[in-house]
């Protein structure tokens, strides 16, 4: 079962359907794809009790304008993209409901690069090789392998019943901080032994994200890394590889990367920091810190354990008093809710 959910009135800079990607087809040259910030997509799905692999919209730098074609439960996570619904501001990291005719207008992000909009049941497009993700360079998945265009109609897989409360909010303890300055943890890559000097320079320098960055790779400006002019072997490319091409300017290879490549990779971003790398935007400053492989696994384990233990804070529709009392005992500082023509705004009273 599937129904029309949203009409794309304006597509935004690059809005694509993404889920957790298409693993297992690398040997056929098929890129992984999937959300750049998988954690935000997963949290959006969690807010709606969707399966973790449900597809949502990934919106980049400047978001779309969407018109609801029916009643919908939505979740909005990741970077703050200045969303308004019928002109009223909605903060990210929460689930909310809209009605037919409501207009969701995403603006520009100021910090971070990508916001996610999940729908109850998940965005419905034809799965390709087990995934709904859009691989823009490979032209597969999503909407005919391309970003959304004005006039597209986004469909949702209708769940058996709707149980979303009025609003659900992610606790602050779960959220990553995005900033204009980021430190990414890295572990040794396949050419670490041959590129000690390049690794030292990579760790010592400050880097700036270049404007020619996309879902394939984030290019970094900074000092040129020393790299031997030799024929390196062509080999498979791990997700998050820090690749150093002949010009010495490193590239962080992200979900739409090619499966094989012939440039050396002295380091790989620790998996725990991949969602942070997926939020890098042109002009952001980046530094690197090396961690041991065992530590990278432990960091990932801790992060996953935090994610699985935390629960969205439920705001039942059982009266305004119960909502306010729930808010007062939470660590939420501010909340704005809207359902149809009803709006509710709460700000934690100052105690100082």
């Amino acid at each position: 079962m599937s129904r029309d959910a949203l009409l794309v009135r304006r597509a935004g800079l690059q809005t694509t359907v993404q889920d957790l990607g298409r693993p297992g087809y690398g040997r056929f040259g098929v890129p992984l794809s999937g959300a750049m910030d998988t954690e935000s997509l997963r949290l959006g799905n969690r807010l709606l009790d969707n399966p973790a692999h449900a597809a949502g919209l990934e919106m980049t730098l400047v978001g779309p304008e969407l018109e609801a074609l029916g009643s919908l439960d939505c979740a909005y996570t990741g970077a703050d993209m200045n969303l308004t619904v019928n002109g009223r501001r909605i903060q990210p990291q929460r689930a909310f409901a809209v009605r037919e005719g409501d207009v969701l207008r995403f603006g520009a992000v100021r910090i971070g690069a990508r916001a996610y909009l999940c729908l109850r049941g998940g965005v419905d497009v034809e799965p390709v090789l087990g995934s709904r993700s859009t691989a823009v360079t490979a032209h597969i998945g999503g909407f005919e392998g391309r970003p959304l265009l004005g006039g597209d109609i986004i469909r949702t897989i209708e769940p058996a019943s709707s149980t979303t409360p009025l609003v659900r909010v992610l606790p602050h303890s779960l959220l990553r901080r995005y900033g204009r300055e980021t430190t990414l943890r890295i572990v040794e890559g396949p050419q670490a032994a041959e590129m000690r000097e390049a690794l030292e320079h990579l760790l010592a320098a400050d880097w700036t994200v270049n404007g020619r960055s996309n879902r394939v790779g984030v290019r970094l400006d900074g000092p040129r890394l020393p790299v031997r002019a030799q024929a390196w072997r062509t080999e498979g490319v791990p997700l998050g590889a820090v690749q150093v091409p002949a010009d010495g300017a490193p590239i962080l290879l992200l979900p739409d990367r090619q499966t094989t490549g012939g440039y050396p990779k002295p380091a790989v971003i620790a998996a725990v920091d991949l969602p942070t790398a997926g939020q890098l935007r042109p002009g952001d400053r980046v530094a690197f810190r090396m961690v041991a492989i065992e530590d990278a696994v432990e960091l990932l384990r801790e992060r996953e354990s935090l994610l699985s233990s935390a629960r969205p804070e439920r705001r039942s529709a059982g009266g305004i008093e119960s909502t306010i009392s729930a808010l007062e005992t939470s660590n939420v500082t501010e909340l704005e809710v809207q359902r149809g023509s009803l709006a509710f705004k709460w700000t934690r009273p100052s105690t100082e």
Partner: protein
Amino acid sequence: MMRLRFVPAGESAVMALAEGDLEQRAAHLRGILAALDGAPPPHLVDAIPTDDTMLLLYDPLRTTAVEIETYVSSLALPAPVEDSESRLKEIPVLYGGEMGVDLGRVAAFAGVSESEVVELHVQTEYIVRFLGFMPGFPYLGPLPDRLTTPRHETPRTIVPAGSVAIAEDQTSIYPVASPGGWNLIGRTPCRLFDPREYPPSMLLPGDRVRFRPVDHAEYSRIHFEILAGQR
């Protein structure tokens, strides 16, 4: 027994390096891939082979590089398939003209006529070394030395799907339209990548490939048969 060496590639992947000469390494890795297909170790996520390496991607919360390495090293490999027994695929190609705009460039580098380039290209039997770059893109070799031609310095923004191309000492076919710097010598109507099929790629590592020259009429006929789902 062939040996593998392992190099870490982050906390979620390990690179297996095959030793021996090129043919032995390729055959060894194809054997491993076939064995992994039949019985993958728990929590292996993907395996990406090239000429002499295989990247093994795994879930680091549920297994370790050591477990993956031990498993892969102890695989009972199927007997190596003689190349003459592996699958032979014939690829019809309309060479030159607007379908192969760089045929003249390749001929100039080789110091031969365009028809001699076609002759050299079709009389060679190639092996699919591995797939990479884009879905279903086969790296085919060995190319006759004569045909070695450098890439374009500035890649084209669009290379049409089905383009048969040469770069350095390799030849390939673009399965989907994409930017590309290879020299385009012809085009095939064959569909190299179809995500509705399994395997999604028409050519697989180890396959043998021969190109067959066709004229406009035959190209069109095959093209329409493919569009109509008749082949």
